[in-house]
């Protein structure tokens, strides 16, 4: 691994287990407000990361539970009744970015992760 030259840039970090270590994913500057990116975790899981226009970060599982494709990071984000969500780009179901709860089907929820910039 090469040493990062810009030490000033904040990293987006994920907490993979409760009270576990923080796992650095990417530079904060690569997260564009309103658009997501996907990250690969050491155990093969995929996470979708988002940043809203006020700079808040969110992380949920990248796998769309309705189709099986790993695409949630590519959906459009928005605010519904004050809560942030992403709409799956395939069949458009919306997921709450804080809890992972599907807003269009109460029986479906994806994992939500703790995320921070440090």
């Amino acid at each position, binding site marked *: 691994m090469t040493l990062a030259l810009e030490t000033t840039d904040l990293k987006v970090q994920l907490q993979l287990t409760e009270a576990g270590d923080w796992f650095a994913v990417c530079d904060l500057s*690569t997260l564009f407000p309103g658009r997501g990116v996907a*990250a690969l975790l050491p*155990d093969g899981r995929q996470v979708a990361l988002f940043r809203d*226009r006020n700079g808040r970060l969110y992380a949920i599982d990248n796998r769309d539970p309705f189709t099986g*494709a790993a695409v949630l990071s590519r959906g*459009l*984000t928005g605010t519904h009744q004050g809560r942030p969500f992403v709409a799956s780009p395939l069949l458009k179901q919306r997921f709450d970015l804080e809890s992972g709860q599907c807003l269009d089907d109460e029986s479906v929820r994806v994992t939500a992760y703790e995320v921070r910039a440090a």
Partner: protein
Amino acid sequence: MSTATTETTPTIVLVGHGMVGQRFLEALAERGLTATHRVVVLCEEPRPAYDRVQLTSYFSGKTPEDLSMTDMAFIEEHGIELRIGDPAESIDREAKKVTARSGLVVDYDILVLATGSYPFVPPVPNKDATGCFVYRTIEDLLAIEEYAQARATTGAVVGGGLLGLEAAGALKGLGLDAHIVEFAPRLMPVQVDEGGGAALLRTIEDMGLSVHTGVGTQEIVVGEDGAVTGMKLSDGSELGTDMVVFSAGVRPRDQLARDCGLTVGERGGISVDEQCRTVTDPHVFAIGECALAADGRVYGLVAPGYEQAETAAATIAADEAAFTGADLSTKLKLLGVDVASFGDAHGTAEDCLDVVYSDSRSGLYKKLVIGRDGTLLGGILVGDADAYGTLRAFTGSVPPVAPEALVLPAGAGAPVQLGPSALPDDAVICSCHNVTKGTIRGAVTDHECTTVPEVKKCTKAGTGCGSCIKVLGQLVTAELEASGVEVDKGLCGCFSQTREELYEIVLALRITSYQELLDRHGREAARGGDGCEVCKPTVGSIIASLAPTIGADGYVLEGEQAALQDTNDHFLANLQKNGSYSVVPRIPGGEIAPEKLIVIGEIARDFGLYTKITGGQRIDMFGARVEQLPSIWARLVDAGFESGHAYGKSLRTVKSCVGQTWCRYGVQDSVRMAIDLELRYRGLRSPHKLKSAVSGCARECAEAQSKDFGVIATSNGWNLYVGGNGGATPRHADLLAQDLSDAELIRLIDRFLMFYIRTADRLERTSTWLERIPGGLDHVRDVVVHNSLGICDELESLMAAHVSHYRDEWAQTINDPEKLARFVSFVNAPDTPDPVVAFVPERDQMKPDLPLLSIGLRPADTLEDVLEGSTQR
């Protein structure tokens, strides 16, 4: 615990779980009878009750599950014992026992027969041969579909009534050459009169179905293998066909009743009284199509059956109810043609008069039957049944305007549009569920319903055949407006403006940022937020179409614009079901030189892509991983290709025919014009996609009349057609102007497109827009041809700005490292492909590995095996 209760709880046995049977169960539950009774249902079919009325929609993509009318939670919640695939075989009325096929014997206190009908098959020789079918159940449809696909190219339907036409439409939809053989001298003899039948015939023949009226079927001809090869008709002719569907009427299924000594009518049907109790046995009821009602009729429609179900349930609950007869009004869309008849459609009342409007050119026929005193008694509408809901509700009263005003088409001197607000409160709006205007108004005023879905849920109106939904919508809006509630026409939860209003705001105030628009013009609660998936792409599209004029960057991946785009636009490719993308380079007019064909072939081979010729005269390459898109496009751009915008709400293709250059009939160079148009309007972002075509003569090989703007060559120039549509609701385009020069044609299209982009709703194709905007085609012609609003100069200059600022999105992107960095599966592992995107071979190419997608849905702890499994492939 249950044995004791079973012995003391009275038992209701329902035989037949069809549409009426299910309704009966709901009525029992509503009256609390499921709590006080044990309810056993014997259901013959392999699935619980489904929507038989919508049966044909199976062929337009509805699955058997979509058609289901049975909520299993309802069945469980009410403790109903539903025995699927276990029909009743005999009834012992003396012992009050029913025996089912499984051997189960149930003691009943009350028995309800809802066995429906069976299709009547005329006793012609070989009627049971391989390749002969009926049209009643989902199983029938599955069998028809399988046979048609495996071994038929031609199909004939015996019977030209309502079901016969549906069956013929289904055969045609399966790709067969379809024939209809009807014994009566016209189609739909029961519902329509001679004039209506003639209008229907012309329209149906125009759709490519062959109709043989006034002839009977004498014999089914079979080949050596015993399968159908044709049929002999009563006029001595023979019709070759690979399959036959009998649709010659239905007969009540009353055998079970006959066998146990219940009285049946002379022409069938279990005789019942006004309470739907059999005349023979007070413990037995009959409802639905198997019953011969007290008025001496067997009803073959679902609405009267529902009323009978309610009546029987009420009677069992010892409430007062009676079924004394029902209205036979129907409105149908048969093969896309509206057909409606209501009240005394055939004018059987003494001294009644007809008002008829008939226009055989456009397949319209409308007849009203009026009593001497001006009372509306009934009528028939063919070709345009928009007025059905209103007219049916006025039946039996003197309408507030002259009857002819009600049948004349708009614009032909029809002075009034009689809205539902003119109806009395007791007018029945939904005849399937017998819901009056008063009840619907009550739902809005007393139950605080504010949307059509809420009203449907609350009153059941509109949940049957669906023919009343239009009037229902008008009523709900009118009622909300009357009670001072402002009907929200806003684009979404973030904006109270329509798309058209937002366009005007963006243009007038030169707003180039979505956030600025949201924070200044959005709804109070949405300001400062992140918007939503509806308004972001809509506003992105408005800003993109106006970009050069308002001074925004027209590149959809620049700055904030990138966050507004739908996924497809964001990756400049079309997302497929497994997360891979398809790539469609532009092939203007469908013309392509061999060198370029070879490039496409080489790229597809080198990247292992699946290739297919599209319906839009170009080539689609499927299965590209997101990180492959830049390298694929680098090679395409290098070879002179541009983005085909298959992903955008923008111009797709301008199809062409070879035209004058090669074709012996061509009168203009249609290929050149198609290429010119495609290059002129490429990249133009619009409310929905835009399609076009240019044909070299009136033979129309490019199908221009099914396009948003279509051009057909004449010996004097070009005819321009607008508002055509293929897709789910096809519409023939309307002629906007004739014999135009090249320059005139382009000027008119410029104005037309810009006017559409300015005024259409989100995701509204030109066809629906043209139908919706006040004044329709005439208004559009006034604006774009006669410049009635004086905006043509502006429309033209908006288009000129678009044309001169066009840049190929892919060429821009592959030269921009910052944008290219987005084309990765994983931000932290840019070279690793997404393991869920995997492929398996099929027919010399490949397709997505679908099982892998569903494996991926297993809980997270098994994910590691999954990923391993996928790499082993």
